[in-house]
């Protein structure tokens, strides 16, 4: 039988949480054993829950050109939010060498 020799997390404390998806916040109340208290409030989302997630079935089909490229959905515009393209070895003036080197 296992016998605890010391108390790892003695009772008398509490950490209470209220998570509210409507308000988009999470509220914490921490009570130490000695009675001290701390309160914290953080946002959990900035948008009505799940409202901005795209279902790709409702979006335009990707072009054949996009399929054959290295781009992912919404790229390249979502990478830099300007008209810059995807970084490549060529665009960045690099060369890949095989193996481990320094």
């Amino acid at each position, binding site marked *: 039988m296992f016998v605890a020799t010391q108390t*790892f*997390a003695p009772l008398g404390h509490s950490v209470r949480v209220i998570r509210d998806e409507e308000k988009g916040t999470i509220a914490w109340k921490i009570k130490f054993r000695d009675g001290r208290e701390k309160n914290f409030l953080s946002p*959990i989302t900035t948008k009505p829950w799940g409202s901005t*997630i*795209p279902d790709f079935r409702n979006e335009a089909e990707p072009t054949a050109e996009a399929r054959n490229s290295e781009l992912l959905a919404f790229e390249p515009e979502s*990478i830099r939010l300007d008209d810059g393209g995807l970084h490549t070895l060529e665009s960045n003036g690099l060369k890949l060498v095989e193996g481990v080197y320094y």
Partner: protein
Amino acid sequence: MKTIIEDNIDILVVGAGLGGTGAAYEARHWGRDKKVIIAEKANIDRSGAVAQGLYAINCYMGTRWGENNPEDHVRYARMDLMGMVREDLAFDMARHVDSAVHKFEEWGLPLMKDPKRADLPADDLGKGAYMREGRWQIMIHGESYKPIVAEAAKVNADKTFNRIMVTHLLMDDAQDNRVAGAVGFNVRTGNYHVFKSKTVIVGAGGASNIFKPRSVGEGAGRVWYAPWSSGSAYGLLIEAGAKMTQMENRIVLARFKDGYGPVGAYFLHLKTYTQNAYGDEYESKWFPELAERVGKAYLDTENQHFSHKPIPTCLRNHAFISEVAAGRGPIHMVTVEAFQDPHLEEVGWENFLGMTVGQAVLWAATDIDPKYINPELTTSEPYVMGSHATGCGAWCSGPEDISGNIPEYFWGYNRMTTVNGLFGAGDSVGGTPHAFSSGSFTEGRLSAKAACKYIDDGKAEGINVSQSKLMSVKRKSSNL
């Protein structure tokens, strides 16, 4: 106990943590008519290493502000892992990762803004608007990181099977190096599930509890890495015959003792620092000896500061362990200075509340208020995972435009393992340390696009799994 068969799947995502959710989402973009199925052993709203939330996205380049280029990430990861990285895979992840983070923000994930930078014009190079924790990390209010990202996968998958523990992959009859699906059981009902699929993307996460945890007695069960991560990412791939890499590379972390509270925001943002039992800085004392051992390439004590090279994580751990072994422990984090600033105190607490509540519970239970008491640090037990500061996992193909000229790095489909039709993401891909949450999601996206192409190229035609093979896998699965 029933047997439930799901047939004609195009893309089966095994494990929908950050890698798997990215895969399911992206699979729908490139495979509008494809059947995309998720098999997840928990519930994808709160599963995997990000279940409890995160307070930082540890991999964000900020190329839009000229903060970092993908090759900077490669250099950093290569330095931290002392050379052991797949540069092609790391570059590829890094060039896409920002687009994932921008989508997270669009979906409602609260990314913190730096008030000093938010109003800067976009062309003010070198200064991004997000609150940087360090060069690569941005700070978030991420308690709901996982449920937000899971939504993207749920909306786009045809069906999400929660509570399915996948135990084995299925292989094709005719080509034994071609994947054909997976089997598992429902951890609530005990029902046996067979998924017949043209491709499988394994995002089943790393492994805790391989090594004896430090927390024993009443504290047993507390570990840094998710206690429910049982190494399926590796078990499934190894059994299927996938070539693996760096499986001996384990991760050990310096964390707040017993609660495993993370230290990143403390070091980088709060500027707290460590000291030994005598109140002395100890780390640099060990550097000359370590530099001799590993060479100037990895520890150049004179020039480190100027070259902005990070000191490899394993060497810093080594200094910590050596100091304790020399009898000058315990090591404390000096928080009492930073915590006098109410804003920094708030960040310090919220950092735990948003991802490691247990640390806050423990401090409350033991009356440790870091404003007045410097808490103790310790090194964790070792873990096996491939997306943090370690790179173990499957040897995967890179993208054509980067890896195409090197046969050892490229065999047709990005992030495909050496088993045909079997892809990886996050912890399951080897040689790609420092991907973290955002990079794992990105790798899932990359593998999903490649899996669609694999199917469209006809590589999955004629797959068959005989009844007798199904029976023998079932016997293995139920004898576990």
